[in-house]
């Protein structure tokens, strides 16, 4: 009984392993980038769009609107990062309908890597928005006594992001695997459907939480409640 795709090793030489996580991650990256490159070769700006361009525009504008509703006033700056997080996790869980595919996000390595990206991006965007002193001062925000708790909450938020995504994806795959040995015909299909639903919800949750953390880091100080948006 495999706990994660990390344990499905295709090729090994010494301690260099090619396991299913790496293979499926690269396959997903290939599909996403090739698909995007092919679909954006000839972009139309008139009134008639091809179906695929329409689909991409719907996805991009929906993500941009969500980012704006969270409180980030210029969504274009964050669209690349947060949109990629959402698309990668959503594509990983959508592709579970392909037989033999195990989502790379069902491995703690992948989710920890994604959570570390968010952990690095939040100070990066915060310093870009507020300057180094402004961002560091936000750690002393209510009082200076809160400094250790703010630092601990940064670390625990990152850990929670990683474990939440890992737990949801791993449990979906494991429930289907266990049910296949008990009631092979109807129940595993129903549980795969549920796994699809939770996979998409978790993709949305991951990217929205990343957006909320970035918004909290780039927010102007509380003393100006309706401050003008940063130029």
């Amino acid at each position: 009984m495999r706990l994660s795709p990390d344990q499905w090793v295709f090729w090994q030489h010494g301690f260099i392993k090619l396991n299913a996580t790496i293979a499926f991650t690269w396959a997903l990256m290939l599909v996403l980038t090739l698909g995007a490159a092919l679909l954006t070769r000839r972009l139309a700006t008139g009134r008639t769009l091809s179906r695929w361009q329409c689909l991409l525009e719907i996805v991009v504008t929906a993500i941009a609107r969500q980012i704006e509703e969270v409180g980030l006033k210029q969504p274009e700056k964050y669209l690349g990062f947060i949109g990629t997080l959402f698309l990668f996790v959503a594509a990983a869980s959508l592709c579970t309908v392909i037989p033999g595919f195990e989502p790379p996000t069902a491995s703690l390595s992948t989710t920890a890597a994604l959570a570390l990206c968010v952990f690095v991006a939040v100070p990066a965007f915060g310093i870009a928005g507020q300057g180094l002193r402004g961002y560091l001062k936000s750690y002393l925000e209510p009082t200076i006594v809160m400094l250790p708790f703010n630092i601990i909450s940064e670390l625990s938020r990152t850990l929670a992001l990683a474990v939440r995504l890992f737990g949801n994806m791993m449990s979906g795959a494991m429930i289907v695997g266990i049910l296949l040995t008990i009631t092979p015909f109807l129940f595993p299909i129903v549980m795969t459907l549920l796994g699809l639903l939770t996979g998409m919800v978790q993709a949305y949750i991951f990217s929205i939480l990343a957006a909320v953390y970035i918004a909290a880091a780039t927010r102007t100080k509380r003393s100006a409640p309706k401050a003008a948006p940063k130029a």
Partner: protein
Amino acid sequence: MDSQTLIAVASIIMAGLTTGFGTMGPALAEGRAVATALTALAQQPDASATITRTLFVGLAMIESTAIYCFVVSMILIFANPFWNAAVAHVAGK
């Protein structure tokens, strides 16, 4: 009872109890969250996008404690270091 049996018994019982008790709290909390969200939706239907989005984010945060308990149960059953050490000890003897 030798130590290997003791480790197995403890792991099995605690794996069951962890998931069993660990999912009760989040389930109650999620029920209350959805109930309050439905009340808010009934009172202000045109804020439904914000309410729904906040509801889902809140549910994910509550769900994650249940997921932590599930992960601990899975570790106890499938990736138990004490069991692996006990088996290696017996095999090496």
